[in-house]
């Protein structure tokens, strides 16, 4: 009797239009992937929000540690030259 069995938790990602990326919209419990997709359809696309659904078991999602974010993201802090606005060019220059 599997009454109190906890179904795995799935994270749901929806792509709203062709060519856009999938966005995380929330999570739900389901017994398997097919049920997860169907439930995701019922819960997260009631207003035609999606053309594609991805589900992944939450246990397979690995996240960076919030306590380490300062050191993890430090390398980009002093590299403002990766942005186009860093480069000072005359207005007469077109198509660039």
């Amino acid at each position, binding site marked *: *009797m*599997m*009454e109190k069995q906890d*179904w795995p938790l799935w994270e749901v990602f929806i792509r709203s239009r062709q060519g856009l990326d999938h966005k995380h919209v929330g999570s739900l419990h389901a*017994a*398997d992937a097919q049920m997860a997709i169907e439930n995701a359809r019922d*819960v997260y696309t009631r207003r035609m929000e999606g053309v594609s659904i991805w589900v992944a078991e939450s246990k397979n999602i690995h996240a960076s540690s919030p306590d380490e974010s300062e050191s993890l993201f430090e390398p980009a802090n002093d590299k403002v030259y990766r942005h186009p606005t860093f480069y000072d060019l005359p207005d007469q220059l077109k198509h660039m």
Partner: protein
Amino acid sequence: MPLDFQQNFDAKLELEIRVEPKDWMPEAYRKTLIRQISQHAHSEIVGMLPEGNWITRAPTLKRKATLIAKVQDEAGHGLYLYSAAETLGITRDEMITQLHSGKAKYSSIFNYPTLTWADIGAIGWLVDGAAIMNQVPLCRASYGPYARAMVRICKEESFHQRQGFEILLKLSQGNDAQKEMCQDAINRWWWPSVMMFGPSDTDSPNSAQSMKWKIKRLSNDELRQKFVDVCAEQVKLLNMQIPDAHLEWNEENGHYDFGPINWNEFYDVLNGNGPCNKERIAARIKAHEDGAWVREAAQAYAEKKARIISNNSEQESLMEKQLQTT
């Protein structure tokens, strides 16, 4: 070092940075959020019952379809909130058990019966209206998953209130019996809706701490006053009365004065003596028990599929090994 963690936590609150599931948080902060979010979730699910009552008797197909859509939304809202609560370390099973045992509360407004079709309109206008008033500031709650759930809920909630008001508007433009039914529903749902905002903050034990933790952003009284001010204007479009002889515009402070609230009724209903308390919990328990076979079947099917897949891959690797040795 616990001191650093507390300082980090306090700094986040100060800077309006969201607290996320893996962050350190005071145990009491976690507990109060579990209580508030799970009770919010229970309210959504139980809230499906008084409205579900009229799905089979909606006057037109359009009204039936829109009411079904609203009730479906409430189920979704319950899910977003249960999911947010689970990030804090409580399981769905524990929360459901707490609801069924009476250990967890839900919004007492749902312990009132829906006696006529006009009640569905009154609920959309007043109950969802009060909920929206409460939920918009919660979009800025300090706990990330709760705030994000509230953003999604608020987007969906707006059609709920419009659906309700439209029902009442239609009735208010009808025959005498329909107008009477409209006024009667307003008369029964007004005060319970006003009470949805909870007691005055001086009488509300959790309010002060919730405000410090930026879970709660506006006081009960502030929200209640906003609600009264807004409804007092909206009711004019219905040519109906709000059942409060003391309701009067106060030019000095720019708000509507309103009459005394019967808090005895509020606490009575909260403690289990409302018209529908027992019925609501009984319905939830029955739904859970009647649905057990579906959960078991889904579980059994998933396990069977997993066994087949693992058997197949075992056979494949066995065949590969045999091919290699020949």
